[in-house]
C-alpha cells in the first residue's frame, strides 16, 4: 500500500484518528499541540470534526469543546518527546461519553491518536458487574437460607438495592392483609446508622402516612425525583431520613 492509500485508509477508518505536532517552550517543555490531520469518525464521536480542528491549537479548542481536568498537552507532549505509545480510557464530562484512546509517536514532536467510543461497552460491563454481584449475593442467601434470619435476608437485599441503584437509604415494609397496616419495618444498616433516627414508637403504621401509600393503593411502582414538591402531601415524623428522591414498588402475592 503506498502513502496515499494509507492516508485514504485513515480518513475512512471506523475509529477516530488525528495527527498532531507538539509546540515546546524554550525549556523544551510541551505547551500546546496543533491538529495536523483528523478523520470524519473523530468528529462523529467527539465533536472534533476535521474542518473545525485542523490547523488549530489544542489550547484554542479546549476552551470550547474539551473542558476537562485531564492535562492532554503534557501527557501527549511527553509521549511525542520520548517516543513509544500508550492507551487509556477517558470520560468526557461535557459529552457524558467514555472513550478508549491509543496514542503513539513515531517522530519527535509529533503524535497520532486513535479514539473509539466505549460508553455502551462500559455500561454493559457495569451492568454485568452489578448482575454478577446481585447473583452472587442471592446465590449465597439461597444456598444458606437456614443460616440467615428473615431480617438478615431482607437487610442484605436492601444493601444490594442501595448498591445497584447508587442510593444511600433503603427500606422494606411488610403490609398486613387489611392492606392499610404496616406490620414490620426493616431499614438497611446504612440507613439506620447514618440517616434514620426515628424511634420505634413514631414509626408509620398506616400506609396513608407513608411515601409508599400511593404505591400500595395503585400497585404501581413509583419514582419521585422532586421530593420537595411531593413532600406537601406526605408526612414524615421527626427523625425520618431527609429525602430528596426515591424509587419504590410493591411486592404482591396471589390472594387465597
Amino acid at each position, binding site marked *: 500500500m503506498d502513502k496515499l492509500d494509507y492516508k485514504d485508509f485513515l480518513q475512512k477508518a471506523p475509529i477516530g484518528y488525528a495527527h498532531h505536532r507538539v509546540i515546546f517552550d524554550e525549556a523544551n517543555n510541551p505547551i500546546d499541540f496543533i491538529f495536523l490531520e483528523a478523520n470524519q469518525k473523530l468528529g462523529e464521536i467527539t465533536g472534533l470534526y476535521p474542518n473545525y480542528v485542523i490547523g488549530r491549537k489544542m489550547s484554542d479548542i479546549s476552551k470550547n469543546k474539551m473542558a476537562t481536568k485531564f492535562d492532554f498537552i503534557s501527557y501527549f507532549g511527553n509521549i511525542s518527546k520520548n517516543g513509544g505509545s500508550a492507551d487509556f480510557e477517558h470520560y468526557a464530562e461535557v459529552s457524558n461519553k467514555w472513550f478508549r484512546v491509543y496514542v503513539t509517536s513515531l517522530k519527535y514532536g509529533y503524535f497520532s491518536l486513535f479514539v473509539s467510543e466505549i460508553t455502551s461497552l462500559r455500561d454493559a460491563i457495569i451492568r454485568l458487574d452489578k448482575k454478577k454481584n446481585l447473583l452472587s449475593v442471592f446465590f449465597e442467601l439461597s444456598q444458606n437460607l437456614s443460616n440467615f434470619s428473615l431480617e438478615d435476608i431482607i437487610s442484605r437485599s436492601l444493601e444490594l438495592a442501595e448498591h445497584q441503584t447508587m442510593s444511600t437509604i433503603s427500606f422494606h415494609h411488610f403490609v398486613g392483609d387489611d392492606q392499610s397496616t404496616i406490620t414490620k419495618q426493616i431499614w438497611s444498616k446504612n440507613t439506620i446508622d447514618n440517616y434514620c433516627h426515628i424511634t420505634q414508637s413514631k414509626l408509620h403504621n398506616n400506609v396513608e402516612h407513608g411515601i409508599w401509600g400511593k404505591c400500595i393503593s395503585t400497585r404501581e411502582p413509583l419514582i419521585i425525583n422532586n421530593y420537595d414538591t411531593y413532600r406537601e402531601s406526605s408526612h414524615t415524623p421527626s427523625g425520618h431520613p431527609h429525602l430528596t428522591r426515591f424509587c419504590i414498588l410493591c411486592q*404482591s402475592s396471589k390472594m387465597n
Partner: protein
Amino acid sequence: MPVIQNELVVAVIGVGNKATDYIDEDLESLTEISNTLSSLILQKEYEQKLIAHQTIIELILNNLNSIVYISNIQTYDIIFINDYGSKVLGGDLIGQKYWDKIFGQTEPCEYCSNKYFSIETELVHNQVSYELFNNKTGIWYEVTDSPIRWHDGHIFKLSVIRDISTRKESEQQTNDLVHQLQISNNTKDKFFSIIAHDLRNPLGTFMSMAAVLYNDYSYFEENEKLDFLKTMRDSSRNIYNLLENLLEWSSSQSGMIKLKPFPSNLYNLVKTTIDLVTNLATSKSISITNLIPQKLIVNIDPNIISTVIRNLLTNSIKFTPKNGKIEINCINDNGIKLYISDNGIGMDEAKLTNLFNSDLNASSLGTAKEVGSGLGLLLCKDLIEKHKGTISVESTLNQGTTFYINLPWL
C-alpha cells in the same frame, strides 16, 4: 383503585436519595431484587413452617408413651426411633437390626410383618397389628406396623409399640374374677343342691319317723320302736355331719377360715379324730389303725387337718365293706406326706378323674347304703389348699383307695 384486583400487597420496598435522578434502569434493578427477595421470603416462611411442623411432630413422637420406630423392610435396619424408644431400649439404635435390639431375637421374628409389605411400590396390607410378650423387656406389647413411602419412593415400615402390661394385668384379673365367679356360682349351686336334696331327705326321714312314732306309739312293739329310733339316730347323725361340713365349707368358701399353724403332735391329732368316727367304724366292724410315729411334731393347723382326716376316714368307712381295714400313716417327703388307705370297693377311672370336681362330683351310696353329699372331698381339697398343700388319690376298683395329703413345712 387497585390496578391488580386479585393480588394482595405483602410488602413495599424502596430506595432513596440517589445523587442523580432515578431512571427506569434503577426501577428494573429494584424490581429484580424485589422479585428474588419475595421468592427468598416465601422460601424462608416455608422453611419456618416446616421447622415448626417438624418440631410439633418431634414433640408428639418423643412424648408418646410408645416406642415409635421406622425400619428398612429389606435390611431390618432401624432408621428412626423416638426418644421414648431410645430411653426404654437404651443405646444408639440407628442402623441396628430391630429384631435384635427391640425384640431380643437372634434372627428375624416368625411373626415379622415385613412379608405383608411390598418392597417397591404396591402396599399389600395397610396395617398389621399383633400382641406379643417381649423377652428383652419382659413386657407385653401391642405392635402396629404400617407401610410408609419414604422420600426416596421406597416402602419403609412405621411401627408403634405400646406397652399393654396394665391392660394385660387387667385382663388377667378379669379372667381370674370370672373364674372365681364361676366357682362361686358352682358353690352356690352345690349349696342349694345339698340343701334341696341331701339335707331334705334325711331330715324328711327323721320327721316322718318321729311323726309315725308319736302318732302310733302304742301300736308298735318295743323292737319296732327301737328300729325307728335307730333310723332316727342315723338320720340325725347324717344331718349333723352334713350341717357340720356345710358350715365348714361355707366358712372356707367365704374366706373365714384362716390358717393358724403351730407345732402339733400328729399322732395325737389323728387319734382324737379317729375317736370321732369310731362308732361309725364299729357299726361296720372296720378297724382303723393309727401308724403315725407317736412323737412326731409338725407345724400344722390342727383344726383344718382334723376336719380333713375326719372326712377322709368317714369316706373310707363308707366305701369299705364290713370287717375292712383302714390305715393312717405318714412319710417325710419335702414336708409331711400323710396317707389314709383302705381295702374298700375302690373307684373306676371315670370316678377317680372327677373326684374333686365340684361340677361333676356326685355322691354314691356306701357299702351299707350310706348316703352322702359329695361335699366332704370338696371341703378336704379346699382346706388342704388353704394349708398350702395338695391332696391326691390312688384307687383300684374292688381293691381299695389311698388318699395322700402333702403338707409343706411351714
